[in-house]
């Protein structure tokens, strides 16, 4: 009975979303106040129904209701409660339900925190989100219903994919979806502004905090996914340029470009039609990612059950949403007038450079991702585009991006002087060049060109961030007061940029100076790697609630002192008979020690893989810094200030003060 209610709530949510998508839109164009006011309660009602639906599916998992097909396929009585709850989004149907539920949450939040926006704007934004929501809810209801029943109900379920039985994967999809869906807000703002013909600084200012928050979630989601792949897949890799990874990385790159372009639109009132286009692109890439992942047109390590009808449905959805928005763009954007002009050497130019590089990076990765599909479609054969392509095209684009990133924040809007910038930056330039050579040599005793480049640009970025901090605070009566007086958004930006430097250091050092060894070890055997002594102490049997495991024990010592005992497991999950490797990791800020148990080789010997990975944590630490930076930037008081006053009239004045 309950699952049917869940299904019913889902259908109701779809109907409400349809009303939310139509009535306020007509109201806004005809100026009917009652119809305009319909938007907010509709968004809240829709969210409520989605919440009920999601809650009922969760309840079915908690109570092991295997008469629900989706529960039977993704859960088992032996599965611990925590994983039974996370199994709600462990498969295709449930993860889509999570998606629409989060979409409802974003709509409700927009309704909640937009009290000071013009009512027509809110009505249009919520209507656009409602229409997108109709599409996705219909996708769930008609092609991927999680409430379908099995009759008769099986005695036990087929268990959750063992790969997903992990804390990293519990958090990864919700974060990622919050990011994907969050970009629908920026998208809806852009479409609403196009429809209303009000593509002004106020629009950019309203979009900014929403875009930043969506970007923060996406950043965290990607970082979590990468961290999970590192410790769970047992190959010690953290990024594979897999189509599904690319599907999340593409909107991230475009979203990053969008955040920066919005800053120009807000402060200088230029780049506006470009910004709108980026907002459309960012969300389109989220939809495109969904299509690529769920339709099975590309082979990927992320196996979602693929089904051609689903592929056709998502493609239709993609076509309608993106096609319609690009049509509106082609219709409305020519009327947008750019107000500001700027000199060749100005902050606008640097931000334009940022945008161009990020968009080119997006395009090259998109090309690499769908290239196998293009060839296949044109009957030119089948190829697999691998990491060599992506590394070869992506790295050369990121180097100039980071160099520009160092200069941008220190440059002036509209016009700057070369002499001023050169004087300001020469110390940082010399310092980063010198230390960029010395530091890797001190740490690892080697010279490698790419390491010197990576270290130099990271140091350059870090130095310019601190220069900026000092430069901005210098005029104040007291340096400390100057520091405190800076707005939160400045600290957010600096922290996020520092995060980029930290990630680059992590990538550079861990890719060039990792050590790895595959060998046969019998109990008592020892190996020295990276200054650490690894001793294999044999294996023991172990078991968890739903798996049996062979556990290898390796003791690590340094200078005769024992520093860690690592446990690495080969698990066989009972229900699916799927083998899994659990790596044993001793994490550290400057190095990870990583061991994984391979196959038994007879005579008590085992294949063992041992890695020494310097600075690898920095990759995710940088991601975390970027996310914290984003949160700081989005909570800047001027966004709240704006919310308190009447929108529009005040924005021009503020823009002048802030710059």
């Amino acid at each position, binding site marked *: 009975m309950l699952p049917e209610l869940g299904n019913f709530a889902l259908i109701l949510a779809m109907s409400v979303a349809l009303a939310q998508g139509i009535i306020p839109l007509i109201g806004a164009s005809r100026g009917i106040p009652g119809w305009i006011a319909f938007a907010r309660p509709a968004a809240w009602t829709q969210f409520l129904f989605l919440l009920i639906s999601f809650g009922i599916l969760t309840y079915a998992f908690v109570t092991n209701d295997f008469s629900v097909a989706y529960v039977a396929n993704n859960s088992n009585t032996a599965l611990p409660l925590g994983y039974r709850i996370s199994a709600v989004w462990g498969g295709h149907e449930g993860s889509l339900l999570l998606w629409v539920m989060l979409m409802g949450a974003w709509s409700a939040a927009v309704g909640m925190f937009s009290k000071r926006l013009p009512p027509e704007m809110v009505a249009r934004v919520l209507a656009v989100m409602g229409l997108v929501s109709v599409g996705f809810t219909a996708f769930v209801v008609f092609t991927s219903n999680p409430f379908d029943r099995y009759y008769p109900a099986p005695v036990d379920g087929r268990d959750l994919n063992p790969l997903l039985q992990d804390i990293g994967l519990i958090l990864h999809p919700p974060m990622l979806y919050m990011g994907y869906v969050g970009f629908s807000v920026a998208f809806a703002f852009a479409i609403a502004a196009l429809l209303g013909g009000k593509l002004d600084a106020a629009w950019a200012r309203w979009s900014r905090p929403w875009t930043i928050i969506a970007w923060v979630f996406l950043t965290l989601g990607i970082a979590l996914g990468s961290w999970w792949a590192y410790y769970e897949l047992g*190959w010690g890799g953290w990024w594979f340029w897999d189509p599904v990874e690319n599907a999340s990385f593409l909107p991230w790159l475009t979203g990053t470009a969008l955040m920066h372009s919005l800053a120009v639109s807000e402060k200088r009132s230029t780049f506006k039609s470009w910004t709108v286009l980026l907002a459309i692109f960012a969300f*389109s890439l989220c939809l495109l990612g969904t299509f690529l992942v769920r339709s099975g047109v590309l082979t990927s*390590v992320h196996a979602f059950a693929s089904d051609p009808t689903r592929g056709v449905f998502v493609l239709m959805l993609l076509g309608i949403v993106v096609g319609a928005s690009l049509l509106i763009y082609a219709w409305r954007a*020519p009327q947008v007038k750019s107000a500001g002009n700027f000199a060749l050497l100005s902050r606008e130019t640097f931000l334009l450079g940022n945008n161009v590089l990020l968009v080119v990076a997006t395009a090259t990765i998109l090309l690499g991702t769908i290239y196998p599909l293009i060839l*296949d479609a044109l009957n030119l054969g*089948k190829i697999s585009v691998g990491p060599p392509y992506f590394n070869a095209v992506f790295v050369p684009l990121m180097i100039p991006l980071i160099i520009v990133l160092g200069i941008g924040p220190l440059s002036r809007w509209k016009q700057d002087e070369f002499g001023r910038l050169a004087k300001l930056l020469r110390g940082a330039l010399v310092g980063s060049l010198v230390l960029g050579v010395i530091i890797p040599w001190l740490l690892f005793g080697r010279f490698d060109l790419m390491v010197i480049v990576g270290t130099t640009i990271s140091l350059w970025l870090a130095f310019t961030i601190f220069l900026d901090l000092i430069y901005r605070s210098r005029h104040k009566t007291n340096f400390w007061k100057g520091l405190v007086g800076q707005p939160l958004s400045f600290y957010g930006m600096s922290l996020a940029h520092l995060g980029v430097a930290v990630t680059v250091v992590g990538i550079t050092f861990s890719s060039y100076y990792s050590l790895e060894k595959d060998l046969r070890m019998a109990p008592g055997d020892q190996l020295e790697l990276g200054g650490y002594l690894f001793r294999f102490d044999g294996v023991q049997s172990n078991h968890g609630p739903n798996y049996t495991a062979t556990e290898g024990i390796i003791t690590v010592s340094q200078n005769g002192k024992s520093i860690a005992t690592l446990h690495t497991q080969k698990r066989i999950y009972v229900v699916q*008979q*799927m*083998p899994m490797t659990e790596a044993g990791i001793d994490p550290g800020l400057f190095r990870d020690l990583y061991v994984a148990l391979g196959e038994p080789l007879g005579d008590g010997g085992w294949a063992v893989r041992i890695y020494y990975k310097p600075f690898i944590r920095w990759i995710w630490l940088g991601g975390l810094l970027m996310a914290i930076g984003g949160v700081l930037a989005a909570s800047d008081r001027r966004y709240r200030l704006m919310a308190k006053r009447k929108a529009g009239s005040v924005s021009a004045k503020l823009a002048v003060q802030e710059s």
Partner: protein
Amino acid sequence: MKARFLIPLAVFLLLIGLFLVGLQLDPREVPSPLIDKPAPQFSLPDLQDESKTVSTEDLKKHKVSLFNVWASWCVACRQEHPLLVELSRQGVVPIYGLNYKDKRPDALNWLNRLGNPYTASAFDEKGRVGIDWGVYGVPETFVVDSKGVIRYKQIGPITEEAWQETILPLIEKIRAEEG
């Protein structure tokens, strides 16, 4: 309406057309024309021992065997690999490999590192045999019986679902047929 503002729309429509074609071609859904036909003849050097050869005759020695196309550069193969190793460890079915468009040292290194589930791997450096067998992408797995007839083709990694629901029942069926 200025023409240049229509460019994004035009590019997008092109992309949509491409995806439509892509959906029709969906490699996982299209059965191989080779199914229930004799396997294409081949004879290639053994990956691990150049002096030996691996050929269609080797496949015919068994009542039923798997012929798995793999390469060290293929990410999805890594996902599939533990399952193959487990199958070979339990001795469920002999597995022959076709090491496709690979370099010998890379391939050997991969086997040393991740375990070698293969009775033998044929070394198809140029990918000629792969073309004969109609290989779309890597990995692919063929089920071949003792008469050398291809009974099934799995495109992409062998999933738990495909193994339990299709491949294992088929292997048991073929074994029963041959008695």
